């Protein structure tokens, strides 16, 4: 055996781990720092914020009532009085874009959140509890197989009146729409989350948590959920676009908001008939929808990177 000489500071240093130079930071600060460094995500977040502010505060700055019909001012192009022009009844397009944006954004975001919640919930339950797996996956098949339109008709039939009575007509329809879209679009999320949870369950830290007496509910909230955020993020991106488009289709079929309620999808649909005469009319809602979806996509990309501590550490 080798004789060891007296220790020097360097030798000791070799045995303790080198301290990292940067000071420790809180998790959210880290997430934010990583997010900030993602150019696309930052740009996306900025634009999204601008859109959000515009639809929230726009109506306060732009006083024209979106429902006001000025029949003499029909079909006008952009002008000072109507920066985005007017529609076939002389309603101000800019005011309608603001008002429509509020509803579209509210529906898009809420329905997406609902779908995410349902999808993650069912996906996690199915993945985590073996006994529930078969049942829940068949349920997913069932929902995938359900025809959307009759389902919506039934929902309207059963719930419109009670909801309107409870929350007032507009809120009632809003709840109905959001739940309808949410209920019919959670399935892909559930599938993806489930397969991730199945893989995650085999990981050793889950076993470690179990051995230290973690209960199932704590296990899911502390260990499973944070680790399946990445697929949930992707679903969020695709979900918001899906919600916006479904909403417009439903409104058009008369299953959604009252007809004088503008939404972006509806504005786009209505404008499609006038594509040749007044092409600018499709541009506003079309661009608004695309830009919103794009920004959400970039935000999702950024968040996904930022929420992953391994990437964050790099």
């Amino acid at each position: 055996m080798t004789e060891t000489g007296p220790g020097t500071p360097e030798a000791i240093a070799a045995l303790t781990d080198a301290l990292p130079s940067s000071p420790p930071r809180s998790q959210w600060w880290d997430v934010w720092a990583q997010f900030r460094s993602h150019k696309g995500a930052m740009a996306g977040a900025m634009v999204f914020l601008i859109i959000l502010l515009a639809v929230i505060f726009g109506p306060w700055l732009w006083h024209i009532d979106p429902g006001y019909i000025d029949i003499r001012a029909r079909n006008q192009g952009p002008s000072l009085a109507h920066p985005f022009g007017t529609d076939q009844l002389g309603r101000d397009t800019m005011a309608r874009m603001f008002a429509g944006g509020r509803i579209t954004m509210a529906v898009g975001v809420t329905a997406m959140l609902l779908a995410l919640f349902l999808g993650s919930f069912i996906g996690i339950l199915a993945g985590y509890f073996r006994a529930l797996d078969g049942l829940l996956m068949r349920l997913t098949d069932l929902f995938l197989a359900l025809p959307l339109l009759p389902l919506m008709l039934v929902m309207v039939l059963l719930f419109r009146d009670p909801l309107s009575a409870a929350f007032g007509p507009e809120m009632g329809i809003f709840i109905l729409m959001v739940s309808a879209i949410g209920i019919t679009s959670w399935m892909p999320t559930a599938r993806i989350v489930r397969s991730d949870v199945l893989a995650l369950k085999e990981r050793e830290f889950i076993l470690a948590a179990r051995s230290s007496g973690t209960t199932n509910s704590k296990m899911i909230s502390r260990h499973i959920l944070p680790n399946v955020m990445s697929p949930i993020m992707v679903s969020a991106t695709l979900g918001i676009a899906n919600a916006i488009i479904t909403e417009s289709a439903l409104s058009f079929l008369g299953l959604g908001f009252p007809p004088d309620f503008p939404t972006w999808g509806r504005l786009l649909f209505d404008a499609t008939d006038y594509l040749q005469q007044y092409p600018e009319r499709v541009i506003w809602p079309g661009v608004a929808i695309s830009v919103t979806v794009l920004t959400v996509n970039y935000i999702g990309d950024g968040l996904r990177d930022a929420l992953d501590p391994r990437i964050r550490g790099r």
Partner: protein
Amino acid sequence: MLDHTIADIRNLRVEFQTKDGPVVGVEDVSFTVNAGETVCIVGESGSGKSVSSLALMRLIEYGGGTIAGGEMHFHPQDGADIDLAQTEQSLMRTIRGNQIGMIFQEPMTALNPVFTVERQLTEGLRLHKGMTKKQAQARALELLRQVRIPEPERRLAQYPHELSGGMRQRVVIAMALACAPRLLIADEPTTALDVTIQAEILALMDRLKRETGTAVMFITHDMAVVAQMADRVVVMFRGNKVEEGTVEEIFERPQHNYTKALLAAVPKLGEMRGKPLPEPMRLLGQEDQEIKPIVGTDAPLLTVKGLTTRFAVKGGFFRRTVANVHAAEDVSFTLMKGRTLSLVGESGCGKSTVGRSILRLVEPLSGSVQVGDRDIIGLDSGDLRRARQDMQMIFQDPFASLNPQMNLADQVAEPMRNFDTHRGAELQARVEMLFDRVELPRSFMRRYPHELSGGQRQRVAIARALALNPKLIIADEAVSALDVSVQAQVVNLMMELQADLGLSYLFISHDMAVVERVSHDVGVMYLGRIVEIGPRAAVFENPQHPYTKALMKAVPIADPRKRKSEKDLNFKPIPSPIHPMDYAPEPSHYREVSAGHMVLTTDSGY
């Protein structure tokens, strides 16, 4: 031995572009490798060993690195001189795999999971040597024979996941050897493997070097392996070469402090000969260390009787159980308060299964487990959860057993939150105390697992295991994946805690030197059964069972003068633990050799 330089690396510098600016992976490294010679590169984790070898292959560019300076001369034959630092990638392609072969650090993931062994083996041959499919197949078969894979014809058609870890590693080696390279780079090829397979592979590489004159660059941090293999040794530290010399020089006259510290941290089998009780290691730089044997008590804490655990193999139309994996078969032992019982054995022999069955993380088929006066097997899920307060587990893999998304304070606090033993400030205080206890700075509490080195992570896992003041800790390969220097610290810490708190450990490991250091008693497992059990001194100094003897022989010794020759090693492939449903194994019968030293007399399959 040909004295012809194959590779000559001068002042290599490698940088990585990261978001926080350039990071230096290797600062300044120079060394040469000669034909027919094995150069071992050792050093702490993160010192730039892998980066150097990747730079030599010019694969570092694909990982985001750049060769920022230095020269890498490669002489495939006399006279030829290529500076690899400047070569075009297109020319590199004709060198990689052809004249330089590489065995990667992680054998489990180095193979493409979706292609057959044949396809992966012949790819390079057909590309570089222009062989036809038939010729390449013949050569592949020959290679597999060379690396001593049983039934090579069958292996060719198999996929990587159908092979055991040792076989996979041998396939990787065969791949690296396929085109008979002039230089073979082996990056920690055996770290993840257990001793028997490691010994086989080391023997194989040594033979190849001797027979073909290939130059070998062998990267490792295991000093015992270095002692076995090396002709010359290069010691690296923080991106620099700090020392170079022949293997005897390095082991006998280390110059640099780091080298000395490294050697001091290596546990050596046989060090404890004559000492019946375990004691902590003496570490360099910790002069005030008090080395005291740990006595323990004679009161039984954990009594396991006839523990049997099987995993069902399902199949058929209705997913019925068609066969069973007999992972643990009639296992019995007793662990006393304040003492350590080690379980050793080959990979897959059922060590982890025994550990997990005790905690009922897998449900045992039969047998009894008594902790204190509680019968674990009979508990319902609520009582079981409460019973786990007394017994905690440290898992095999520190990387895997921490939640990557949770900060460390929360992970350590989790068991206490689960049982609501402490709250608020009290909880905070206890977490801080635990961090102090395992010698982690308190600033680490807000960190995430990926921000820690492997050793630090293992200490977090230990802190978590201690949080509830358990009586029993099951340490499943708690130190196997660690760097020697870190390993020594962790081992000492565990023993210190045992001395202070009177903990009992069930210590699961395949590293015989560490086991010798820490245990009071040792059980040797083979194919789900304990083949030999008894006081550590008795089992190590007087092994009775043939498997125990083979195992002891396979352990490499960190002394270049005590090399093992290939003919000492005599391995049999492990028989399958899978048996049909109607297979009824015999119960285990033991013969007492000396006080408490038992040897299995039933047929164990060895």
